[in-house]
Each structure stands twice: as C-alpha cells, then as structure tokens.
C-alpha cells in the first residue's frame, strides 16, 4: 500500500471516501445535464461561502496531523517530502466536501463551464488547506486579523471587485490566475511546514497566565452554570477541521458582542446599499455557522462531566443546554437589532433576519451542542474530528445544521414562517432537555471514554 493510501486510510472511513466520490460524480453529472440558470445570487453565495470557509480554516484549522502520527509515524523511515505531500493530499480530501457546496452553487450559474468550475474549486480548496496549515503557527492574536483580511479579500468579488481568487467563480479569468498563484505559493509554505512534523510533538510552551477571571464565590450551582456560559464563550479545537492537539481558548462575551456588532453594522450597510435577499442570507448563514461552531464545539462534549454531572446529574446538563441558548442569544442580539433597524429603514428582509437571530439561532446552538455530544464519541480525545467519522449520526448533525440554515432562509422569505420554525426549534430544545435524551447523551459520553 502506498504512503498516501496509508495516510488516507488512517484518517478517513471507507464510506467517507466513497461518499466524496459519489457526490463529486453526481454534481459533475448534474452540471453536464442540467440547463444553466441565470441565478446571480447562487454565484454570490458561492463566493461568500468560499470566503467564509477559508477564513474559518485560517482561524481554527491547522495541519491534519493526529497524535498517533507524532507517536508512531514519525519513527517510521519514510521520506519526509512524500509524507508531507500525503498529509497535504489527505487534508484536501477533508476540505473537499465543503467546496462541493461551492461547486454545486457555482455550476448552476452561467458564468463558468464545468472545467473552469472544477479548476476554480480545486484551486480554492488548495488555497484554504494551504492557508490553514501556513497560518497555524501564528498566535491567535495575529491569526484573527489574518483570517479577517483574507476573508474580506475573498468576499470582495461579491461587491464587484474582480482581483481576488474567488472572482474565478464569477467567470473572471484573472480570478482563476490569482487562485492558482495564491494556492501554489501557499502550498509551498504549507508543504515545508508539514516537513517539520517533529516540532509539533511538543508545541506547548510554559504555563500561561490568564487575564480577567470570573469569580464564582457566593453563587449557587444554577447561577454558576449560567455565569460560565454568559461571561465567556469557550472555543475548542477538537471540533475544528483537523489539528494537532486538543486546543482550548475562551472569548469574553463583551469582546464577542463587540465583534458581532461590527459585523451587524456591515450587514446593515450592505442591506441598505444592495437590497435584495443576499445580505440577509449571508448574515443568517454566517451567524448560524459561527454560533454552531462556537457553541457546538465548546459545549456538552467538552463539559467535565466527571465532576459536573457527578455533582448535579442531569439537572446540570439541562441547565447547561439552556445556558448555551441564552449565551447564543446574547451574542447574536446585535444582529437582531441590525435586522430590525434595517426593516424599519425599509429593507423588507430585515425582519426575517431579526426573527432568525433570536428565534432560531439560540435554540439551534443548543440542539447542535446536544447532537455534537452524541456524535463526539466518534472522536478520540485530541484525535479525529467529526467529518472523518461518517455515520448516520454525523449525517443527522449535518442535516440539522443545514435545516437551520434553510429555516433561516425561510424566515427571511416570510417572518411568519420564521416564527413557526422558531417555535419548532424551541420545542425541540425543550424535548432534548427531558430526562431520556439527556441520559442518552450522558451515557454515550461516559461509555466512550469522555469521562
């Protein structure tokens, strides 16, 4: 078996690889057989999605190197360049499903033929993978602006600027050239980074002092749970797209609300300037994806159940799920305000954004956190990330994320439909807070070594 095959086999299940092949073939066939539609919003959505994926990859990604690689693979007498290339190729496979969404949207539009679309998608996937590996060593303080700058550059074609790699999706030849050049340049950096695998074996530095601390003194148990979720949002690397180790961090709620306020102001300006549903859809999609990745990764599966559930049992988990919804409601509230303001200023889709922000995203964050706890046993601590273990439950997780996005779009189209979807999501949240589903979640985590 070749080194590449071994590396792929150690990371992905057979069904995952088969599913990728079938999906790619299906989308290609669809592109060949279906007539082109003149739907500019799909192309713009493809650009936005590519920008979002790449920015998130820089922010929370990293090389797809498992702990077992560091413990065992490094000792093997294999050629380092070949190993780096295999690891890189495996990471392309990890990101490929995300870019299938991009391709499927761009193929529906008249800008690109099949060959150009596949070439653009491959170049953009390579760009995201390379950026994620190349920026991995930067401290978070530098990675945040880097991800932001790259994201802004990549989304700029949606606002008419052609000199960015993602403009390839809109049919600009200079975009394809830029995508290929940027991917090639960063791939060079990424491959040289992957050749230095030994340095990942001990990435931890010295003990790290924390800045502001929360004081739980004088608080009862239930209040403490809500304080934990409302003062900070935990960010956990395990749920990210690959990574060397289990990484944790936290963002103060004040800072997060400020960041969301800035993004909401941008949304408000875009909706006033461009009109149409696209700014609203992009805002709801970005808010759904961000809240799910923040709250899902930092929630149930990362609770220290050995002490928290041992102390309060299912009561702890119930309040924790509700606290997650409350936390999400707090940090997306600026978007709800911006949506309402846009509506009052005459932007008809603004009300739907407000409904989605407060009606759907908070319960969805909790539902996602719960589902994540069911799926998480597919991971081994600090090892695999969930896209690598494809099963029915993984599909359920993906489907729920997709459903929430669809519900958000429904809210934009009709606030009444959005209110209905919100009621359903809150009902689901209450249902999973009942004894049986919580027992199922706890049992799943305990039996699979999370306690």
């Amino acid at each position: 078996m070749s080194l590449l095959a071994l590396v792929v086999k150690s990371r992905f299940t057979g069904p995952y690889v088969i599913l990728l092949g079938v999906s790619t073939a299906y989308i290609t066939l669809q592109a060949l057989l279906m007539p082109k539609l003149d739907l500019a919003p799909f192309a713009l959505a493809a650009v936005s999605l590519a920008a979002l994926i790449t920015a998130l990859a820089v922010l929370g990604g990293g090389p797809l190197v498992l702990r077992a690689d560091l413990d065992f693979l490094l000792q093997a007498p294999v050629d380092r360049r070949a190993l780096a290339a295999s690891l890189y190729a495996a990471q392309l496979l990890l990101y490929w499903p995300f870019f299938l969404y991009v391709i499927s949207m761009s193929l529906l539009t008249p800008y690109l033929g099949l060959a150009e679309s596949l070439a653009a998608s491959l170049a953009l996937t390579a760009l995201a993978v390379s950026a994620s590996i190349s920026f991995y060593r930067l401290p978070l303080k530098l990675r945040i602006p880097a991800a932001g700058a790259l994201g802004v550059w990549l989304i700029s074609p949606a606002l008419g600027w052609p000199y960015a790699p993602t403009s390839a999706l809109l049919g600009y030849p200079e975009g394809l050239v830029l995508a290929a050049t940027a991917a090639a340049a960063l791939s060079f950096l990424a491959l040289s980074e992957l050749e230095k695998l030994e340095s990942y074996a001990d990435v931890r530095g010295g003990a790290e002092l924390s800045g502001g601390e929360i004081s739980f003194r004088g608080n009862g148990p239930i209040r403490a749970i809500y304080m934990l979720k409302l003062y900070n949002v935990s960010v956990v690397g395990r749920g990210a797209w690959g990574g060397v180790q289990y990484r944790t961090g936290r963002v103060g709620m004040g800072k997060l609300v400020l960041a969301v306020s800035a993004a909401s102001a941008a949304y408000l300006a875009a909706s006033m300037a461009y009109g149409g549903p696209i700014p609203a859809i992009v805002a709801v999609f970005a808010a759904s994806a961000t809240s799910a990745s923040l709250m899902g990764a930092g929630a149930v599966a990362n609770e220290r159940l050995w002490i928290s559930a041992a102390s309060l049992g299912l009561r702890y988990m119930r309040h924790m799920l509700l606290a997650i919804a409350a936390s999400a409601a707090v940090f997306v509230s600026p978007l709800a305000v911006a949506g309402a303001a846009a509506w009052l200023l005459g932007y008809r889709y603004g009300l739907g954004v407000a409904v989605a922000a407060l009606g759907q995203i908070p319960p969805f964050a909790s539902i996602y956190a719960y589902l994540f706890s069911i799926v998480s046993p597919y991971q081994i601590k600090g090892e695999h990330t969930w896209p690598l273990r494809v099963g029915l439950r993984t599909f359920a997780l993906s489907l729920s994320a997709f459903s929430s996005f669809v519900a958000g779009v429904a809210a934009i189209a009709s606030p009444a439909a959005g209110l209905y979807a919100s009621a359903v999501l809150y009902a689901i949240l209450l249902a999973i807070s009942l004894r049986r589903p919580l027992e199922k979640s706890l049992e799943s985590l305990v039996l699979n070594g999370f306690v």
Partner: protein
Amino acid sequence: MSFEVPCGGATALLGPNGAGKSTTLKILAGLLKPDGGRASVGGLEAGSEGARRISGYLPEDPEPYLALTVRENLEYMAALRGVEDWGWVDELVDALELRRFLRYKASSISRGIRQRLAVAMALVHKPRVALLDEPLNYLDVPSQEAVVALLESLGPTVLVSTHILSVAERLADEALIMSGGKIVWRGPLAEVPGAREKGLEAAVAEIIRRGP
C-alpha cells in the same frame, strides 16, 4: 459481584485492565446505570441526589475545564457543590500546593499539577465517600504524600481503583481483587496467599490468572 465498604473504611479495587474497576466507580458516581442489581452509596441509591451530595468522584486521567484558570475551576466546582466554607477551599489550595498556579489556565499547567487540581475539585465539598480512580497518577512523591495526608485528615470512606499495589497499600485497609467482572479475592493485602513466599505482585497476579 457484591461487596460493601464499611463506613470510614478504605478499600482498593485491584484487577487487570478491563476487569470492571472503573465501571464500578462510574456506577457508584451516578455516571452509568447498572444493567441489573443495586448500587448504593451511604445507603442512598447510586446516582440519586443524596448520593451525589455525599460522594466525590475522581476519574482516571481527569481533565479540568481547560479554558478556565485553576482558581476558576475550583470555585466553579465549589459553587456547583453549594460549598459555603470558602476557608476550606483555601486550605485545600495550600494543602495541594496550588496557590502559585491559581491564575494559570488549566490548559497550560503540567499533568501533575492538573492531577492535584482534579483531586482538589473532587474533594472540594468534603465528601463522606471518596471514589478515586488511580488518584496518585502523575504525582511526584511530595504530592502523593499531600493527597494521602488530605484523605487522612478528611476521613471519608474510600473506594480506590488502582493496579499499582503500592498505591493500594498506601490508601486502603483491604483489597478486592477483580477478574472478569467478578471478585476473586477479598482481604488485607498483607494476607494475600503466597505473598510472603513469592512477593505481593506475583501472588496477586496468580490470583488474577486463576480467575473466578
């Protein structure tokens, strides 16, 4: 299997990997439900609110909240446990020599200090029953002594799971040797048959090998 630990007593669960030691502790801590039978802690059904209140559980390789500091971890657990005696929390910090790490993030401290923190979190409410899974893992000798002294001063009923015989000797009055989910021998470690002739490790291994 059926066993009980007398109030104030200390018993060690010994046995090979997969014998069911950790599962037994998780059932008693209320984290797993037994398929059948009955488990109780201090006369209260395992997993009930009363049983949770009086017991403190420390799993093998425990992890605190990595994004929180040492102080926040301790205070959060104290709040969850409804602790009002904050003087005791301070005593615990000093007893386990955690004071100089209080403001450090738990993700950045060493495995040994993390273990000390976990012990403090498990004992923060002065439990009457301590369920400890390999409590001395990763600890240097002075830290091991600090944990032993802490348990002696608190005086809880102790059920400790380990496969290190010296730890069992240090923390328990008697041992339950498990194999294949069953208890195959019970008594003080000094009375393990064949221990004097072959040595304790060889004698225990022989009992485990013979099985139920």
